[in-house]
């Protein structure tokens, strides 16, 4: 078979389409799919930022309460069993500030990531460049979020728990348990981040780079 024959065979499918289109569902599906994608992204990023911001605000609120609240009313609380010291309020305020910093960092990082996804490439090479840059950015965020997002959040949570436990005068076992839990979850999340980089992002980047190399090499 020569190439002209192949072309005739190829063109034969124009007369008998392989599929029919469900026209009734078409527009609804396009709209649904587009909206669903936007909603899912907005929900994920919005919820993440909101939860972090609420934690920060709650910590600052407790810090403010310990500083300016009525000492007699606070003394009646079940979880205040020792006299309130200035360091308790400072600990909560520092933790709240650190948590808000993490929330802001994550929100800005996600916004930057979303903005990078918007440009529309007109060629396959442009699309590959965009995809490679996007995976590179995901790796960078996954790495930096550990130092700028997780560690400050863990320190803040640790500070907050230390102040709370001291105020509640809990036993040393409770400290040990919470420290252990925090360490386990920290190790778990750190492991998951590096696992995602090694087994998800890096292979995807290699695959894209090999495709780009193939596109650039006429003899490939």
């Amino acid at each position, binding site marked *: *078979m*020569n*190439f002209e024959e*192949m*072309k005739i*065979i*190829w063109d*034969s*499918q*124009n007369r*008998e*389409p*392989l*599929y*029919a*289109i*469900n026209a009734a*569902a*078409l*527009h*609804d*599906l*396009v709209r649904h*799919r*587009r909206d*669903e994608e936007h909603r899912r992204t907005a929900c994920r990023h919005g919820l993440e930022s909101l939860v972090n911001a609420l934690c920060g605000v709650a910590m600052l609120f407790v810090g403010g309460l310990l500083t300016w609240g009525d000492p007699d009313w606070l003394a009646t609380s079940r979880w205040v069993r020792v006299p309130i010291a200035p360091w308790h309020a400072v600990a909560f305020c520092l933790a709240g500030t650190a948590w808000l910093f993490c929330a802001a960092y994550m929100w800005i990082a996600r916004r930057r990531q979303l903005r990078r996804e918007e440009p*529309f*490439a*007109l*060629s*396959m*090479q*442009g*699309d*590959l460049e965009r*995809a490679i840059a996007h995976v590179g950015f995901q790796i960078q965020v996954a790495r930096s979020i550990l130092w700028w997002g997780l560690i400050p959040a863990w320190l803040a949570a640790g500070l907050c728990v230390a102040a709370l436990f001291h105020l509640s005068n809990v036993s040393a076992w409770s400290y040990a348990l919470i420290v252990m839990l925090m360490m386990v979850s920290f190790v778990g999340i750190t492991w998951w981040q590096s696992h995602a980089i090694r087994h*998800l992002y890096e292979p*995807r980047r290699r*695959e*894209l780079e090999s*495709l780009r190399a*193939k*596109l*650039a090499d*006429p*003899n*490939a």
Partner: protein
Amino acid sequence: MDEHTQKQTFDGWLGRHRGLLFKVVRAYAFTPPDQDDLFQEIITQVWCSIPRFRAESSETTWLYRVALNTALAWSRKERRNRDRTHALNSEAQVLLPQSRPTHPRLDWLYEQIVQLDHVDRSLTLLLLDGFSYREMAETLGISESHVGVKLNRIKAQLIIKSQETNDHEL
């Protein structure tokens, strides 16, 4: 661009060039649910691309660009994401397979195309649909001479494979 104009353009494109999209779908997705998912993804991207269309290229070149880029991105998506999308859209199928007489030669041609890597597969589709070297170069973002070298190799490869396959098998 208002939604009514966008819808008119979308319906017009789909009415005139749906066959082109079907070819990309068949070359990149192999099971009916995957084909339906890829088609939905392509038409969603086509819809979103309409406001950016400036008529500097022909409609078919534009649609091929969008469809091929989407197919490439779709192929990269993790399997579990695709499964989740199937689950969400399982009740609303857009692509309805038609019963038609079998075309062994066309099926053979598709078999050869899907064995090519993504870049060569895209070029083969454009070549078979009669696009010029310039249009192919623009669609892929490479030079025309580069396209020529690749196409010569692909053509030779396809001809050798057709010679290796007995006529009675086709």
